């Protein structure tokens, strides 16, 4: 299936509309944005990519094949307003859930890939997000494939209560089994990556990459400020802060991500 077929609900509709840069408030024509890797041409802010744009930018043409695309969330603990939130997110994104999983080639190397989409309930992790990523790691383990993951998330999904929290352990277990089979996992942390995702598969890669200035942290900055009364240092919890403190391997410009991933996959390819 081609990417355009897979995303036809979205493609040609919202995604081609002009978008407003949250940093400089400029309205930007979609074609200009697309030509500039969804980076604001006026102020150079990295705007958030949707799953379609990310897959198109990273996968070799016509190689993406989705898995578990049909899985949708149920309101398992009967949480108020959750059904409505899910419906709204589905409509806005054309996706069934906050993560798209599948296989593709990157620079000619076959890989399993997952892409989280922050437009779907801040890409929070409930049981379906946890299940899809777990299944992808299990599939990659069986088929001896590396995993590349584009990570963004507000954390565990409150609306599924304890079931969401347990997904952190579940996915981490699947990442461990993939690791123990001698296989490569590269998470790419994008803006924002917080809470339970930083505290699970976001931080579990062999090589951890990040986009420039991406917000990456565990506790919310405002919560820290309120709890401790301390003034947050400049650039706190940005990718550059994590690099300086030794928690990520490299910050890669968006335009170079595909080449960097292709190169890393080639270096790790088994003879």
């Amino acid at each position, binding site marked *: 299936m081609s990417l355009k077929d897979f995303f036809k609900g979205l493609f040609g509709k919202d995604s081609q509309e002009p978008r407003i840069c949250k940093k400089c408030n400029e309205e930007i024509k979609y074609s200009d944005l697309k030509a500039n890797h969804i980076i604001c041409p006026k102020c150079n802010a990295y705007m958030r990519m949707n799953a379609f744009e990310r897959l198109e930018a990273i996968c070799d043409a016509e190689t993406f094949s989705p898995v578990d695309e049909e899985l949708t969330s149920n309101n398992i603990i009967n949480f108020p307003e959750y059904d409505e939130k899910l419906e709204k997110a589905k409509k806005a994104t054309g996706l069934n859930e906050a993560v798209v999983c599948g296989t593709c080639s990157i620079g000619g190397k076959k890989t399993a890939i997952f892409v989280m989409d922050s437009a779907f309930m801040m890409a929070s992790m409930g049981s379906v997000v946890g299940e899809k990523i777990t299944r992808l790691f299990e599939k990659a383990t069986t088929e001896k494939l590396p995993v590349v993951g584009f990570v963004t998330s507000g954390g565990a999904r409150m609306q599924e*209560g304890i079931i969401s929290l347990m997904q952190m352990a579940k996915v981490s277990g699947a990442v461990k089994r993939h690791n123990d089979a001698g296989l490569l996992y590269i998470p790419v942390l994008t803006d924002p990556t917080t809470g339970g995702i930083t505290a699970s598969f976001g931080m579990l890669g062999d090589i951890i990459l990040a986009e420039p200035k991406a917000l990456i942290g565990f506790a919310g900055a405002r919560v820290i400020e309120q709890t401790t009364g301390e003034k947050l240092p400049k650039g706190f919890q940005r990718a550059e802060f994590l690099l300086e403190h030794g928690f990520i391997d490299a910050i890669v410009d968006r335009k170079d991500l595909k080449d960097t991933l292709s190169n890393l996959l080639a270096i790790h390819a088994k003879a």
Partner: protein
Amino acid sequence: MSNLTAYEKVAAARGNKRPMGGYFIKNMIDNFVELHGDRRFGDDGAIVAGVGFLNGEPVTVIAMERGDTIEERIKRHFGCPTPEGYRKALRLMKNAEKFNRPIICFIGSSGAYCGIDAEERGQGEAIAENLYEMMGIKAPIISVIVGEGGSGGALALGVGNRVCMLENSVYSVISPEGCATILWKDATKASDAADVLKLTAQDLKEFDVIEKIVDEKDLTNEEICDNLKKYIYEEIKELKKMSTKELLDQRYEKFRKIGR
């Protein structure tokens, strides 16, 4: 069983006099030797860990502890572990694995320590590493929620072959106050939030997230501790009969099936 509401259980779990990890170590473990430090940066007072005997069985114990006096509570930052606490816990779990010693984790904390320094030293990474490594530790692990099981900071000691809760303990993805603030922009509705979050031991047993509830109603702390000790000892005996592969597969499958 008690008929406390969900939020009354939250209050009980946080109770000022409620026994925390240190109490259970003192009353359950013989010849306990506390072991300190993460060998990386420091020693976290919110996690008390060490080795000793449970009914003659050598065990490693890792316990969250907030302290009794205000001075002690400040020193232990109210039982909220720092990255060093989680790394100390993992270091001692690996030591237990080396000597094939069962591991008991006591969990009771509002959550991982929240601060600039904790972020600088990788709070997220420390928790992630524990979830990941605990899935592969080749020794039996039993996790017990004795107080408030606050989100990822609690789960970081919670990847056990058995997970058990005291009757009036709670375990949640977010605090009821935090949930109420997000849902209704009103932290005073925490009681309603506690209901919708389904965070009681009874809820979690229903979801198959935990195996066992240890009764509290009309029992003294000593009696509760004795009953818990019996449960842990019996489960250790069962888990020791498993091969390493069975032990790891059982732990993996226990979490794998949640939300399948």
